[in-house]
């Protein structure tokens, strides 16, 4: 009988304990119901979303990653912003005019204010850009000001190309005829203005920035490191980005799995990343609330000019053969579950003029017979030996597709192909950038490459990667025709003329194939049942100001 009593007692204790635990947990959530969207909109509702801890303080000229970028784009307003389709729309500027291929004039709207009450004037832009350009300030975005007259990468130097004409207007003079493209860059976060108070103590400013955008920090200390940041609607903002909710809370997640778990549990409203493990099922699980649309992200792998067997005529044949040996349709379907789109050019379909078929685009289609033929021809010039390797960093989700591409090449061409894993991104880049005494790159494998557009322009996809000596030209590719076409495009005053130039440049790239285009990445995200009007912008970030939340 004692035994039964103890058993009964412990059972009762267990039940009591579990009930107490369930009650103790703060904010237990009910299972999501099928109801969505009906009911009134709550204009003061706070939208919750995922983010990552900014790598630096919140200073526009020192932020070049999405964690900080997401916050800055919400609390600051620059001369212009990019709408959902990537079109430049004036924000603080009344007017941005391209006067000549090297000069622009900017006029500001009057009466725009920072949240500390000071007015947004021409000086706020000029001083902020100058501050970002000085070498001694060591700002990560310094290179964005490189085209302005007066910029010096080696020493502190004032940007004399920025001339104030009156309190609300200034002119920009450039060192090369890229004014047309420069105008499209002005929506990027490096060009945000800073209030006068920022220059007194930039370090403290970076912790509690004062901006002029649709949102502002909820108060002093609203940025809880590694935890979240609270933003509220900024009533002083008079621009076109009307805020339809009361604020935005960005929770910093350590992993996308945690963010997705929160979405499933109803603990977060919108997420803009789906973890690898759930890519196959998230569209079924979320239904209409899943997001899978093209993004301005281009993936490829680069084969440098210095890699053995890949230069000159032999190189052209081998590159074309490799490109035709990759079954992009199958890989994007089976490996990526439709979250990638096979590439037909070197840019992205999200950008105006991008993602369109080019002359000579057949080299990007799977053609095993032609591939074998070209490879055999190349072998006649110099027989192939060894393994074709693609270097990649293992701290990202690349192993799967590198293996898929290598297998595609192996099965089609009958050669040995494999991925070469590097421990992390830093190590991979170190090897890619290593040069010998004569300045030639030393890496002898292909390496994964790609580009996420900073601003919606074809020039941004092409110039930094394929122009002679450009900053991200991993393979040291150099072609005078391409350089000229890119320069013409940037200087063109007519949009269609510029697009025609960029198209021709890409057609040249298709014959040389400095990098083998693979696919465009999609943005994958999801939202909960309580929110509506969730649209993702050209840069894969939701347009938070448009999101509405229904009353509970």
């Amino acid at each position, binding site marked *: 009988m004692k035994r039964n009593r103890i058993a009964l007692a412990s059972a009762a204790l267990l039940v009591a304990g579990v009930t107490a635990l369930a009650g103790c*947990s*703060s904010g237990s959530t009910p299972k999501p119901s099928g109801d969505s969207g009906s009911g009134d909109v709550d204009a003061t509702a706070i939208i919750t979303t995922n983010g990552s801890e900014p790598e*630096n303080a919140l200073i526009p000229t020192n932020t070049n990653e999405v964690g900080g970028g997401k916050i800055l784009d919400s609390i600051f307003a620059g001369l212009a912003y990019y709408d959902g389709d990537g079109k430049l729309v004036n924000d603080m500027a009344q007017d941005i005019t391209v006067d000549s291929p090297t000069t622009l004039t900017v006029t500001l709207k009057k009466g725009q204010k920072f949240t500390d009450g000071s007015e947004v004037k021409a000086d706020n832009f000029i001083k902020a850009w100058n501050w970002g350009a000085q070498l001694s300030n060591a700002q990560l975005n310094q290179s964005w000001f490189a085209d302005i007259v007066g910029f010096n990468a080696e020493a502190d130097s004032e940007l004399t190309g920025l001339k104030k004409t009156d309190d609300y207007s200034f002119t920009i003079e450039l060192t090369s005829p890229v004014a047309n493209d420069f105008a499209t860059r002005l929506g990027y976060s490096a060009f945000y203005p800073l209030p006068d108070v920022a220059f007194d103590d930039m370090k403290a400013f970076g912790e509690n920035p004062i901006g002029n955008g649709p949102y502002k920090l909820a108060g002093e200390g609203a940025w809880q490191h*590694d935890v979240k940041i609270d933003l509220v609607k900024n009533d002083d903002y008079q621009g076109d980005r009307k805020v339809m909710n009361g604020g935005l809370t960005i929770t910093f997640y350590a992993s996308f799995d945690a963010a997705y778990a929160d979405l499933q549990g109803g*603990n977060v409203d919108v997420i803009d990343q789906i973890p690898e493990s759930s890519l196959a099922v998230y569209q079924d699980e979320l239904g209409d609330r899943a997001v899978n649309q093209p993004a301005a992200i281009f993936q490829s792998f680069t084969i440098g000019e210095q890699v053995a067997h890949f230069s000159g005529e032999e190189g052209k044949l081998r590159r074309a053969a490799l490109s035709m040996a990759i079954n992009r349709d199958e890989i994007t379907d089976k490996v990526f579950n439709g979250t990638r789109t096979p590439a037909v050019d070197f840019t992205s379909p999200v950008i105006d003029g991008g993602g369109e078929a080019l002359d000579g685009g057949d080299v990007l289609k799977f053609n095993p017979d032609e591939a074998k033929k070209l490879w055999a021809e190349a072998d006649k010039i110099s027989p192939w030996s060894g393994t074709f390797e693609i270097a990649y960093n293992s701290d990202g989700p690349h192993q799967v597709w590198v293996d898929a591409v290598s297998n595609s090449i192996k099965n089609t061409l009958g050669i040995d192909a494999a991925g070469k894993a590097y421990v992390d991104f830093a190590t991979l880049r170190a090897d890619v950038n290593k040069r010998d005494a004569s300045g030639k790159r030393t890496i002898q494998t292909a390496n994964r490459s790609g580009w*996420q557009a900073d601003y919606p322009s074809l020039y941004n996809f092409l110039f930094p990667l394929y122009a002679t000596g450009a*900053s991200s030209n991993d393979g040291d590719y150099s072609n005078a025709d391409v350089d000229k076409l890119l320069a013409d495009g940037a200087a063109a005053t007519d949009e269609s003329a510029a697009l025609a130039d960029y198209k021709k440049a890409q057609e040249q790239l298709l014959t040389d194939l400095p990098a083998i285009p693979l696919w465009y990445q999609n943005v994958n995200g999801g939202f909960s049942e309580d929110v509506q009007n969730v649209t993702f912008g050209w840069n894969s970030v939701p347009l938070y100001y448009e999101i509405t939340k229904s009353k509970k």
Partner: protein
Amino acid sequence: MLAYILRRVLQLIPVFFGSTLLIYAMVFLMPGDPILALFGDKPPSEALLATVRAQYHLDQPFLVQYYYYMLGIFQGDMGTTFSGQSVNAVLERTLPVTGRLAVMAIGIEFLLSIIVGTISALRKGKASDHVNLVVSLIFLSMPIFVMCFIAQYVFAIQLGWFRPTVGGQNDWGDLWLPAIVLGLSLYATSMRLMRGSVLDTLNQDWVRTAYSKGLPGYRVLPVHVLRNSLIPVITNSATNFGVLLVGATVTEYIFNIPGVGNTLFAATLKHEGPTIVSFVTVFVILYVLVNLVVDLLYGLLDPRIRYA
């Protein structure tokens, strides 16, 4: 006794220097350039790279960097992260969170293991004993991340009893789910230890004497059996506490808890020297101190043990 404690504390000094030097050397030797990685896909000019590197003293030889770092330590400044925060502030923010998690996990593990272990030992060989052993075997064999994912999916997402992640709300009441999972992962060994210890004690002469004196079970058990059996379990749990304190990294990662494990993991990915070395040094010292306390506790609980 005092001399013993003093000796153990003095041993901390060479441990401190040795571990900081070793960890600093290892971070230094890691391949790849962390400053270049800060720029991502868009590499900077040589001059900018040099300026940023100089900010973190990363252009100096190894021993000079180490010297600057130790100089800072003795002034109480553990350095700054790449994003400009002081490591002291980061530690102050994350250690209490992991501390709470560790205390709750050990508490759950300890209570559960002594209750179930005692019951199992008293009913040795019967059905309930076998069930307990099999259940503990299941927990022993499941990797912690499997338990975390299952718990998160079943109890948080499907049933909604808890929130799926912890995030900013990480006070005592918010850490139940990760604490239970952590506790259960350690429970198996603890329970078996308790069971073995109780079985041992039950066979001792003094217990037989107590029963033969006519003392009832409810007097013998807590006073004579439990007190003697608890010793190894307490010391085991205390050691586990030290282990948990230095980072239940996987659990923190899955439940998004801003504790030391998560922060150290992120810092390691970024090759952030000051954070890595400072955190690891603090852990080493904490772990040594916890072990010292465990040893002293053992001596306190068991009067047969004396320290010279």
